[in-house]
């Protein structure tokens, strides 16, 4: 699972921000996960707990998933991601590289692959809170 690779990225970024903002002890890191990437929160959470360093010793990682919203650039149709409509290999390809959605997902109204992922892509570090 590449949740580990993403967890490393979260830890690195949290430490960078803590350093920059002079936070000595990080209490909470809020992480937004896009539904499109189909990240397993349990695995990500476990990886975060295994990878955290002293400065993140008492950190609570709060994960929340954002529903993926797609909007066709051609006809304006809006729709949501439905993993159930994709076969396993295609869903897995999107899991690794969410932009592959443009390979396997088409606008349900006009059939175009030219859509915008308005919400629900990737992983974001939303906020960080701690003691300075």
């Amino acid at each position, binding site marked *: *699972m*590449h949740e*580990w*690779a*993403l967890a*490393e*990225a*979260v830890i*690195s*970024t*949290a430490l*960078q*921000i803590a350093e920059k903002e002079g936070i000595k002890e990080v209490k909470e890191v809020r992480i*937004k996960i896009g539904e499109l990437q189909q990240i397993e929160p349990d695995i990500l959470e476990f*990886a975060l707990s295994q990878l955290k360093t002293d400065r993140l010793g008492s950190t609570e990682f709060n994960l929340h998933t954002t529903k993926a919203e797609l909007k066709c650039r051609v006809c304006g149709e809006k729709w949501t991601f439905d993993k159930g409509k994709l076969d396993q290999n295609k869903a897995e*390809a999107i899991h*690794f*590289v*969410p*932009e*592959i959605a*443009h*390979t*396997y997902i088409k606008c349900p109204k006009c059939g175009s*692959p*030219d859509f915008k992922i308005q919400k629900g*892509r*990737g*992983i*974001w*570090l*939303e906020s960080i809170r701690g003691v300075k």
Partner: protein
Amino acid sequence: MDDPRIAVIEDRLKNIRTILAVSSGKGGVGKSMIASLLSVTLAKKGYKVGLFDLDFTSPSTHIILGVGKLFPKEKKGIIPPQIHGLEYMSIIYYSGKYASPLRGADISNALIELLAITRWNTLDYLIIDMPPGISDATLDIIRFIKRIRFLLITTPSQLAFETVRKLTELLLDLRVPIIGVIENMKMKESEFVQQQIEGMNIRFQGAIPFDTQLEAAIGDVEKLLHTEFGQELQSIVDKMD
């Protein structure tokens, strides 16, 4: 909000000695062929080499190398599979035979994702086959890989050369190292390209004649290495080495 992937890119590349982008202002000048055979040639010399096909919308190194049904392993990220002695990474593992119509922002995102999750082993060289031009992928590579160096490819055509001249100027302005220029598909004696390149204080690495036998060897690496193209490239690599 911060994109956590960016913080980990340098770390993913830290065990790679030289990262080289094979690039040009124009398509169809032989970038992918040179990137592929350059990688194989370096591997045959005993170097540890990775090849990363960054032409997400029009990847072709998998066809040149005759990559069959390979797929990366997952181990705390993705591990590029080996082929012809190379670690090989391409979006083709995920897009297969289907088109990937990506806009610039999507290309950037896919690039960041793959840089953040791909775990290369210790390498002497990572060769990156770039898409043509000076848009998102080129700017992103310069932005995210501070140690990047460029090998530029042109043909004798003034149409190709003019775009390479602009790319050269951009890289010089940005102080990105250019290890040299290869003139590919040369059809008649002319020193025009070499003079122009050397006039910009850039190393002219050599010229490769237009090889009518090359197309028939695509997909068979041993055949490719024995074409006139393959042999000429090997002698250029010997001089670069």
